[in-house]
């Protein structure tokens, strides 16, 4: 099965209202956003959004063109999954009675997750990685009882020395 998920890096001016403009563009045209992460870049005047959308190629082209039309959008790049690195952080709070702790710790070790909070009844794990890794870990933690879960959006960056922010500044 070929995935219809596409990761777009969108460089925008760091100004109020830009996020609303972009998310409204997606919702108005009926495109489903899988994940959206926004933050400043190495240039304070530029923010970078990583948008994961679930669309076929033709609507994707339309999304990209519509994004490019926005005055505050500086650059839109689709990241090739083979030549880019993606990451996401998840905080997951699991039920952790004394008898279950060693199993959870083992799982944490396996996935290079960090224990960031512990109480007699629960532990909170923090894990970084791509969505495959995260879903694998969650599957293993499921039987212990997941009490609460929060995921960040996916961030992604191309491999190698090239920088899209450099290329967007003229």
């Amino acid at each position: 099965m070929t995935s219809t998920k596409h990761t777009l890096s969108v460089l925008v001016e760091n100004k109020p209202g830009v996020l609303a403009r972009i998310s409204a563009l997606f919702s108005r045209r009926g495109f489903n956003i899988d994940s959206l992460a926004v933050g400043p870049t190495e240039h304070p005047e530029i923010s970078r959004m990583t948008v994961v959308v679930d669309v076929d190629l033709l609507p994707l082209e339309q999304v990209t063109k519509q994004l490019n039309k926005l005055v505050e959008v500086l650059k839109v790049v689709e990241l090739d999954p083979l030549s880019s690195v993606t990451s996401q952080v998840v905080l997951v709070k699991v039920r952790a009675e004394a008898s279950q702790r060693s199993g959870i710790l083992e799982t944490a070790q396996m996935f290079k997750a960090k224990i960031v909070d512990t109480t007699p009844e629960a532990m909170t794990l923090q894990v970084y990685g791509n969505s495959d890794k995260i879903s694998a870990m969650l599957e293993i933690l499921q039987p212990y009882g997941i009490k609460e879960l929060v995921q960040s959006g996916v961030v992604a960056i191309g491999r190698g020395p090239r920088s899209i922010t450099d290329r967007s500044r003229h």
Partner: protein
Amino acid sequence: MARPNEGHTVTDTRSSTPSPAAVARRAEAARSVPEQVTGASSLVRALEHVGAQVVFGIPGGAILPAYDPLMDSTTVRHILVRHEQGAGHAAEGYASATGKVGVCMATSGPGATNLVTAIADAHMDSVPMVAITGQVASGSIGTDAFQEADIRGITMPVTKHNYLVTDADDIPRVIAEAFHIASTGRPGPVLVDIAKDALQATTTFRWPPRYDLPGYHPVTRPHAKQIREAVKLMAASERPVIYAGGGVIRSGGHAELLRLAELTGIPVVTTLMARGAFPDAHDLHLGMPGMHGSVAAVTGLQRSDLLITIGARFDDRVTGQLASFAPGARVIHADIDPAEISKNRVADVPIVGDARAILAELISAVEAGEGPAAEVVPRRYAAWAATTKGWTQDFPVGYQPHSADALMPQEVIRRIGEIAGPEAVYAAGVGQHQMWAAQFIDYERPHSWLNSGGAGTMGYSVPAAMGAKVGEPDRAVWAIDGDGCFQMTNQELATCVINDIPIKVAIINNSSLGMVRQWQSLFYNERYSNTDLHTSVGNRIPDFVKLAEAYGCVGLRCEHPDDLEATIREAMSINDRPVVIDFVVERDAMVWPMVPAGVSNDAIQVARDTAPVWDREDSEAVEQPEDADQDGK
């Protein structure tokens, strides 16, 4: 105190690609000595410097500071409208008739929201417009203060760009950017919302300001390779059609369109938005395509093997059922907005750029005559052009008179067009009268036909005609309106009378919401649910003649074919005030040809249940009742 460089204003907002030297000269001429002013003065100065000559608007609490210095401006004329929607459509009419940026102004909250329809309309039809709204003081934003509305948020989907200004220092830059964005690339509306305290604050006015638009780079020059590819497709085609859209008019490319068509002998269709982009009288013109297009235009597109699409967007009203639109045609799609290309119909050759520049490049390539271009000559398409011309002759747009006594709406509109002539400007509302105005008036030049094409806004025509007359005072300006549309914005007649804007309004009065009634006739078994307006049949509510007179206009009525000529001529002779004519017309008249919604353009009907039959030699096709055509399908 005399202002430095007064009178040197940036007026050339039409040209999308001024040379760097011209920009530098203009900037130098317009450079001002920094001075301390209020934000409101800064706004008015900025409007003067960008060359805004007219602002349509209504004051109110939040925008009030701006109205004070506006009163003293010698170059910016403010016209007080009666409803903000009128201001917006007037700005559109001004822009569409002149090619300049139209400007409207309103206060916060309801003033601003009343502009939204016109802003959305301008967005759909790519009209260069700047809307300026007052906003509550920045400290009150977000508190549900009196007359607060998040107009920036509201208009985000219907503007090319918009701004909220809370710092007086930003005003000149934002105004300069707004005019630049509105008029370059694909034109469109830009909203500038300014907080009241920013208007009141003291600031330094400097001109020209420095643009801060790192993400805005419209591509205007077409790519040479794409031009070559386009010429190759042209050379390989036998039955090409130039599908010209509103972009040809917005870019000022009508002369180039004419040249390309004559150079190649390729037939041309002009969409609803492009009426006037190519002379109606020209031999190569097939008319308007689409739902109510001519048989020649609709069939020309359907049977073509190449669409040379310039500044058009494959709107559903043109294509009908998309999957069966022009099934055998390859597509060259030239548009300044890359997002339009392959949005609805995939293009074989996409060309991004200004329509006029693209046409000029195509002309050069064909004229050079090298390689495939040598094949792009009239004799190549002569048989095809003769076939399409045959259709034009066999299936002219026409109508059946109801009875000798009935005033037919088509005839009213046709005679207005003949008497007022091609130098007049015609602004239509939306509905049957709009389609008839597109079909029965001959448009021989650009900027002569104004209408709400994309949004289909009833109430467009009176204020749009008003705006057009302000911009083109020496032309006769006709609002071709319906009795339904007219009742949405007729209060702007007061504005016209008071401000000496003598437009002519033809109310095509069929006492109903005519186009909806037509659909009820055709698709709802003649059940006329809520379309009877009681404006002429049975009673006259309102009496349009009395209403016109109450506003200080001349009111005329015409109910019989015998009076038609004299009434129109009388209206043409009155130039000291607006004229409103109540043309009481046959209410069962319908717009034909018609492609019913959702079916293929092949199913075009020239009259009710009557489709053209094509099984003989194409040029000899004749009308036959539709059932005669069923066997062949």
